[in-house]
Structures are given as structure tokens and as C-alpha cells.
């Protein structure tokens, strides 16, 4: 069974899950409340290894974002080799989900040859919490703490959700797009 067929089967067993495939990768977008069940179902289907847990903030995606664009207008869209980067406007890009944060769980089935990978992706808003998958994949412990620390994503039943990289009294979640890059202004430098 290919990864796509597995994904279709898994998505059928979950409420409101959509499957997409791009660049050779299969992604299932699941509802945030179901992520632990989705991981357990994937584990049962043979995807027994959690490689990566990555959180992304889509605030300002495709537009004049707060992280700071320079030089090129927004809305680049598709890559068109006949048009160098600066001229013309392309297709407007919208984020693939409706909520602000996406958390991608990269799963791997090593026993299959060739090995199959699957991405489970879930979406939450600021302040919304989602279940932790530590019960299914214990290696998500530190990775969920990292997502909490740097992105502010709350995992409701994580056994030990505390800051992992930043000092305890730190205010804010630095990898968010509305958190400034920081540092100090350098005299006589064009960048402020």
C-alpha cells in the first residue's frame, strides 16, 4: 500500500480530515482535537516513528507580513522562469489552512521498502490548545515543549509543559511572527 492509500484510509476514519499530496509528500490535515487519535491510528497502520514536530505561524502569510519584506512586492505566486523576480505581480498566495498556527507531525514507516513517510498536520488559533501525543510517541515530549516555548502552542495534557530553551521568566514566544527579531541597533547602519 502506498502512503497515499494509507492516508486516504486513515482520513476516512477521522472526522473532517483532508488528504493532500505535493512534492512527493502526503499530508493529512486533521482537526486539532483529534490529533492524538490520528497519531494512534497512524501508529496502528505501521507509521511507528515520529521524526519531527514542527510548528509554523502563518500570521501575515503571503501578504506584507510583520517579519519584514524588502525589495520585492508581495504575492509572488508560482515560479515563472520568464519573469525575473522583481517585475510584475503573480498569483496571490493564501495559507493552506484557516487558523493561525500549524503543527506538522512527520511520521515514518521503516519496515516498508521503500520506507513511507506521512505528515499529519493540525491547525490551532492563538490560545487554543490541542491534545499532546506524548502518550503515543514519548519522543514528542521535548518537541512539544519547544513548540510551547518558542511558538506559544498549548498542549493540554502534556505532563510537563514548561519552557525548554528560554529562561523561565521570559515574556513572549519568539518564533511568532509578531515578535520582533530583537538585537541592538547598530550605529550608522541602514537597518534599524
Amino acid at each position, binding site marked *: 500500500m502506498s502512503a497515499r492509500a494509507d492516508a486516504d484510509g486513515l482520513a476516512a476514519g477521522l472526522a473532517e480530515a483532508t488528504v493532500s499530496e505535493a512534492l512527493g509528500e502526503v499530508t493529512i490535515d486533521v482537526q486539532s482535537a483529534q490529533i492524538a487519535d490520528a497519531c494512534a491510528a497512524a501508529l496502528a497502520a505501521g507509521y511507528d516513528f515520529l521524526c519531527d514536530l514542527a510548528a509554523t505561524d502563518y500570521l501575515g502569510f503571503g501578504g506584507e507580513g510583520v517579519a519584514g519584506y524588502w525589495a520585492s512586492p508581495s504575492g509572488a505566486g508560482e515560479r515563472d522562469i520568464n519573469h525575473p523576480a522583481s517585475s510584475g505581480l503573480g498569483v496571490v498566495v493564501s495559507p493552506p489552512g484557516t487558523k493561525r498556527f500549524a503543527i506538522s507531525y512527520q511520521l515514518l514507516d521503516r519496515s516498508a521498502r521503500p520506507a513511507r513517510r506521512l505528515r499529519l498536520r493540525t491547525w490551532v488559533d492563538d490560545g487554543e490548545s490541542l491534545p499532546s501525543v506524548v502518550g503515543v510517541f514519548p519522543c514528542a515530549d521535548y518537541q512539544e515543549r519547544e513548540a510551547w516555548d518558542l511558538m506559544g502552542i498549548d498542549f493540554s495534557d502534556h505532563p510537563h509543559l514548561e519552557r525548554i*530553551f*528560554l*529562561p523561565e521568566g521570559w515574556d513572549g514566544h*519568539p518564533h511568532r511572527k509578531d*515578535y*520582533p*527579531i*530583537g*538585537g*541592538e541597533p*547598530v550605529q550608522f547602519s541602514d537597518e534599524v
Partner: protein
Amino acid sequence: MEVIPPGRPHSALRATDIERVVMTTTVDKVLNWAASNSLWPFGFGLACCAMEMIAMVTPRYDIGRFGSEIVRATPRQSDLLIVSGRVSHRMTAPIRELYEQMLEPKWVMAMGACSSTGGMFANYAILQGVDKIVPVDVYVPGCPPRPEAVIEGVMTIQKKIKAGIPPAYEQQRSQA
């Protein structure tokens, strides 16, 4: 009177030209010569620069030739704090504590761009220069600096000591 030059050690006792057998200097110069030729680094590695610092201790570059043979694990027994790597905000308290635990006279080298000025990481996480928390004697640029460059930094401190320049903390105290 016949002048007998001190050609060999046993004949030095019979030499009559006193300037040939006795060297006069000051106590400070002797102490400085001894201090500069026995700077013991503190084994303090933070990030990538630490790898080049360890390479400096190894046979190809060999800081031991310059007297820094012993890398001590405790700050109490070291003279030279080489801050090798980027300093995050969480690390500032340990660095300051270790610096305080070193006994005077002590010298600090900011090795690499990150500890000198924050390097390429002008962001929320990295202290923009370790000289904000400890007084620094010499800055070695590079990302990471070659072991030869770090040795040159140590040699600069040696020259500084031999010239009688007080360590950075004394200069800061006298300015304050």
C-alpha cells in the same frame, strides 16, 4: 685587572665583570614574565569556537608551547577565560559566576565574532558581546577564528602583560 668572561658556568664564579653574570630588573617585570608565560586557560567552550579552541590545545597548533599547557576544569586554578562561542541570555549568569570565581590576576579573551559583538546573531537570544558582562582584554575576530588566530590572541595578552598593562578589570575599576 684581567677581565675573565663567564664562558662556562663553572667559570662564572671566577668572573670579575659583574654585569656579565647578573641581570638586574624589577620585581614587576619578573612577575609579568612569569605570568605571561604560564597563562592557564579555563576549559570553557560554548559553541563552534570551542572546537577550534580544543584544536588549539592539540599537537598541530599546540598552545602548550606558549605556556598554556594546562587547561583547568576549575576557574579557581585558571588565569585566562576564553569565551568561545555565542552567549545566550541564559548563559550570562553562569559566565559571570565563573568569572567571579577566578582569582586575580585574570584575563578574558572574547574568541570569535559572537562573543565579541554578537556576531551574525543580532537577535533576541544572543548577548551582543560578552564585554557587557565581563571585562575583556582581547577580542579575536573570526567565525570561527583559526587556532592560529586564537594563539595570536593569547600572544597579544602575553605582550600586554609583559608591557605592564593591567588586566581589563583593573582598568575598568580605575575608570569607575
